[in-house]
């Protein structure tokens, strides 16, 4: 068992919503007067028990205990607002915990610091030194790595140009180059992978792999990118609402995360036409998306077929066809399919559409239904009624950036030798 580098013990962090203090001098002085002079209770008293005053405070973290061992790559995952950033801020000493303590040894550098202190007016060279100094390197250390930093950043030609003339890509590359050459014992890598172009992302992940595998350095990796976490990390922690809910093998922790994440709207149903949405022609009875994973309870990823089914009360006998649209959360339509036009009697009608696996790209989607009479008259639309998140899945791919495209069909792409070069000729 490797030695422990950092021990986090019962760390909790409380933030006050709004500002600390009442925000104005007068109110604070009144408080002080009431508290000290008239000996009354402070209305913002230090809270000892579980959040007794929910209208002023939020606990961003509670009871966080874990350790980071030498040489491991520890992944931290969780939704936005789960407390990942707060935890990183505490570890990088930007803010202090409200309770608990952290002990450790070695220099911690974090890539959430990318570009901190960069000054627009200064040249790339000046900024490398400024940024390096801010990140805790001294001039000697920076000078000894200057060439490497320059090469990694790929902005050699513009090194003596003020960075305000840089493109945003160049800016980020230069900033990342400094941070990547810090040589810390513990490297914290945050969501920075989201910035920059694909090639650069690859370089960053490569650097991270280098640092952990070749140099045996310890890495703390925080990401939304499950694929990257699974491939790079030796252990993972899942944060949820400021607490650790799962620790262990990345695969299991990720499964837990994806499972718990299914808070999406997969089903809507109504028991009587009176309360159901619709009009004098149509009342919706049920709409549902059923993921059909290979193993029951498995994650919904790009391989999973999705069955969209619906039932409605048909109030008039008419020729009806149903249109179904799949949209991104941004509202762009990915496809629009339609049933044939069918003569329907009064009563309950139903239908379904199977979206095959290995077709959609990863992302969150919503579904809209359209009820069309005589193939031309829109009777009713039930828009963006269901939504689902499709997770990423990759095999035999060592690239973890965002896969482009709205769809990701599994068309075969062939590659073979056409004319082998004969070594003899």
């Amino acid at each position, binding site marked *: 068992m490797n030695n422990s580098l950092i021990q986090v013990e019962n760390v909790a962090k409380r933030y006050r919503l709004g500002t600390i203090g009442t925000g104005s001098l007068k109110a604070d002085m009144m408080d002080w007067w009431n508290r000290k002079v008239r000996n009354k209770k402070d209305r913002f008293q230090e809270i000892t028990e579980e959040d007794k005053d929910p209208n002023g405070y939020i606990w961003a973290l509670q009871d966080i205990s874990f350790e980071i*061992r030498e040489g491991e790559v520890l992944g931290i995952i969780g939704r936005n607002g789960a407390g990942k950033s707060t935890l990183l801020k505490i570890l990088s000493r930007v803010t202090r915990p409200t309770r608990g303590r952290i002990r450790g040894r070695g220099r911690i550098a974090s890539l959430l610091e990318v570009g901190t202190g960069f000054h627009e007016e200064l040249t790339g060279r000046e900024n490398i030194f400024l940024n390096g100094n801010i990140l805790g390197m001294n001039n000697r250390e920076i000078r000894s790595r200057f060439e490497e930093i320059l090469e990694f950043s790929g902005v050699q030609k513009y090194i003596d140009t003020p960075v305000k003339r840089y493109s945003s890509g160049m800016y980020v590359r230069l900033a990342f180059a400094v941070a990547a050459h810090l040589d810390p014992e513990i490297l914290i890598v945050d969501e920075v992978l989201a910035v920059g172009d694909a090639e650069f992302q690859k370089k960053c992940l490569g650097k991270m792999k280098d640092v952990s595998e070749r140099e045996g350095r310890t890495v703390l990796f925080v990401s939304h990118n499950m694929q990257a976490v699974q491939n790079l990390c030796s252990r993972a922690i899942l944060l949820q609402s400021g607490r650790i809910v799962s620790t262990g093998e990345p695969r299991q922790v990720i499964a837990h995360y994806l499972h718990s994440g299914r808070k999406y709207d997969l089903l809507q149903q109504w028991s009587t036409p009176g309360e159901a949405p619709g009009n004098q022609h149509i009342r919706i009875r049920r709409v549902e998306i059923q993921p059909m994973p290979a193993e029951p309870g498995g994650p919904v990823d790009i391989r999973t077929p999705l069955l969209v089914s619906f039932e409605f009360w048909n109030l008039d006998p008419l020729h009806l066809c149903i249109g179904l649209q799949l949209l991104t959360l941004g509202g762009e339509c990915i496809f629009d399919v339609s049933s044939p036009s069918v003569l329907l009697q009064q009563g309950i009608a139903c239908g379904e559409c199977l979206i095959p696996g290995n077709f959609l790209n990863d992302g969150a989607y919503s579904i809209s239904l359209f009820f069309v009479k005589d193939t031309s008259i829109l009777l009713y639309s039930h828009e963006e009624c269901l939504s689902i998140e499709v997770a990423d899945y990759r095999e035999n791919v060592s690239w973890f950036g965002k896969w482009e495209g709205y769809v990701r069909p599994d068309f075969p792409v062939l590659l073979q030798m056409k004319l082998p070069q004969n070594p003899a000729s």
Partner: protein
Amino acid sequence: MPSPEIPVPAWEINPSSGWLDLRIRGSWHYKDLVLRLVRRDFLVSYRQTVLGPIWLILQPLLTTLTYIVIFSKVAGISTDGLPAMPFYLAGILVWNFFSECMPAVSSTFSSNAAIFGKVYFPRLVVPVAAVVSQLLRFTIQLGLFFPVLLYYTLYRRTIHPNLLMLAFPLLIVILAGIALGTGLILSVLTAKYRDLNNLIYFGLRLMMFVTPVIYPLSIVPSGIRFWVRINPLTPLTEAFRYAFLGKGQFSWGYLAYSFICMAVILFAGIALFNRMEDQAMDVL
């Protein structure tokens, strides 16, 4: 399974910092950063200006000329029998140093919120760099002061520099200490109460009137003399004039008063800053 205790825990993060837990040992590591911030300050100040650092000399010179016309010629305020030019210049140099240093320190949190929110380093580095940067400016401005001194000493023979000049670095240290201490206290307060920012410049202007910049201490009427005398900047200005120009009210005892004020303010400033730096960050 928790592994055994970390063999040598090199650092520990706790809920609150002490009042005077200065981490001096760690801070030395950041001397390069102090110098880098000073350098940045200079590079950035004079980018895209025509005259660049010449402004450092031009600014006190123009102020001095203005004061000569307004206070000496028009208002006829006494210059203690000294020629107006070195009299005002001495006062302005001392006052300018303080009045630029103090706000530079007090804006520590507001102007560095972005950096402080992301990277840890001893926060004291920033105000210290601000003071060093102002000291450098002051030194450059002395380059203007000395020719004026030489002219009036050797050619006009109207001023009489004396050995107290050797104590000049001490005067500057006390002055810088007061500026740093006051700035640190105000930096914490303004981080918490933004409205105090407006008061700082108003307070500085008031303070200038109770500092013998445009008048000598000797002509201050007894009614307000008390206020001028308890101002710890007064002995410094007077001693500065006495050392270089030969006139002014100087005594070691009075200078010691200034020194004690400096020590108290600086101590309080550092303690408060140290104690509150983390909390201030959560507010920003």
